[in-house]
């Protein structure tokens, strides 16, 4: 069953088609690798999917519901989507604990008015922060964390939100080796617990290891899709990345 169906999506900045006629299907409970050289439009597609950018043309179906009102897309929570950003967007002048606790907040204004410290929330937050080894830093300000820790905090926030669809934009960038291992384990756990994961990444090791399915994008178009092992050895894909004559040597 398809979890997300994108049908000829188009986005234009000035006179350049950053995304033109991009169509793809993301299947339920799979890890989808989304790869392509810098500036190929990968992040823009994800931004269109999560309402950060407005859609010029094209339709998006999330678990078979056509997202009509494009503005509504910004409320990812209502579509059961959570995401991280290439450059982590966390609340710098709030503590690490609060950065994660917020996603477990009551959503309605009135009910949030009477919700103070709740045992359920803080235990879930502790569990998540321990998994990513940030529990020790829970009272530190998020803005004071290192780049890798900020990435991990945003990752922990997605875990805490427990949404059906999780999108990670270069989650491994800036991480040390052992942290990469933890993150890849957690992504596999997400899949095991029935989640659908979209992984934008340059690190081909992780893509080959984790992704069930790969979408390759270049200059705004989807140019290949299929099994990672099959796709990433094809000449035309390698050509975009590093060039024909060199890799034949």
């Amino acid at each position, binding site marked *: 069953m398809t979890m997300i169906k994108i049908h000829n999506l188009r986005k234009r900045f000035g006179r350049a088609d950053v995304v033109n006629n991009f169509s793809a299907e993301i299947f339920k409970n799979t890890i989808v690798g989304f790869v392509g050289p810098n500036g190929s439009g990968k992040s823009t597609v994800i931004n269109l999917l999560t309402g950060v950018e407005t859609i010029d043309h094209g339709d998006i179906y999330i678990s078979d519901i056509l997202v009509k009102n494009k503005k509504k897309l910004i409320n990812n*929570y209502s579509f059961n989507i959570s*995401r991280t950003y290439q450059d982590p967007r966390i609340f710098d*002048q709030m503590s690490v604990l609060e950065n994660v606790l*917020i996603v477990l907040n009551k959503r309605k204004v009135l009910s*949030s*008015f*009477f*919700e103070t410290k709740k045992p359920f929330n803080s235990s879930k937050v502790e569990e998540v922060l321990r998994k990513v080894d940030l529990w020790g830093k829970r009272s530190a300000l998020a803005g004071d964390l290192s780049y890798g820790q900020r990435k991990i905090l945003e990752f922990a926030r997605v875990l805490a939100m427990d949404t059906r669809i999780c999108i990670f934009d270069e989650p491994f960038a800036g991480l040390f080796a052992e942290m990469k291992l933890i993150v890849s384990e957690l992504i596999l756990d997400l899949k095991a617990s029935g989640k659908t994961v979209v992984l934008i990444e340059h690190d081909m090791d992780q893509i080959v290891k984790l992704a069930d399915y790969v979408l390759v994008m270049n200059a705004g178009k989807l140019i290949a899709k299929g099994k990672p092992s099959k796709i990433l050895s094809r000449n035309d894909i390698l050509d975009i990345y590093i060039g024909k004559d060199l890799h034949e040597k």
Partner: protein
Amino acid sequence: MEYLIHLAILLSIYAILGISLNLLLGYTGLISLTHASFFGMGAYVTALLLVHTKTSFLLSVLLGVILVMPISTFLGMISDQFNKNDYMLVSLGLNVIIFGLFNNLSNLTNGALGISGIPRPVLFNIDFSSNSNYLLLALVLLLLIYLFSHYIVRTSFGRVLKTIREDENVSKSFGFNTRYYKLVIFVITASMAAVSGSLYASYFSYIDPSSFSVTTSMLILSITIIGGLASLPGTLIGTLFFILFPELLRFVGIPSEEVFQLRQLMFGLIIVLLMMHRPQGFMGKYKL
């Protein structure tokens, strides 16, 4: 001693204003310069009711808040359409417009001449004409508002406000209707300013539009910033400094008509230095 009580009453009036603006700017990141208008609305409602009708003081405070709520909701909706810089200009504009109304609707507000003869309240057979009793009333109201604000900040509601301050779009993506949150806090803080307006009117027994102008909004802003953003005790300290500093100057022998100018000069200097080295203010936790 009598003079000390006067200062303490002034302190509690301005502290309420400072706390409410801190909730807006320090916790939600909204830089609103309309605050003196709500301060004025509360004052005028209480003044008119106490002078022309027999309503009790508490009822007049309540009616002041009841009047301010729909107006601040409407103004909140208007100013929420704009981003940071325009938001500040629009809020400033609303203050000028309401100040113009206070000045020119003379049949209602008696215009620039203001309203005098506002009686002191008599509640539960305590006569508040003596300043010491009035101080009690002011401190009780300050305490209530302080505790209420302290509560707001501790709840999830307060936490959502902080996420709006930090990155509103991400907060929206988590499913929070940020527009609604901003409106609620705007109305709450406007009502607080109205309460402080009622206190002000009844204490001084005379009000005129000049104390509700844009300069007053800017004064409250400077108190809140110097005291410290996102820190309620900080605002108390800021207000204390605001009230006591002229007394210090008088004590040192500065002629009293120059005292308020020197305070403005000192405040301006402190603000510039704070922005340079400590943008969150003395005890603040939020750097602008």
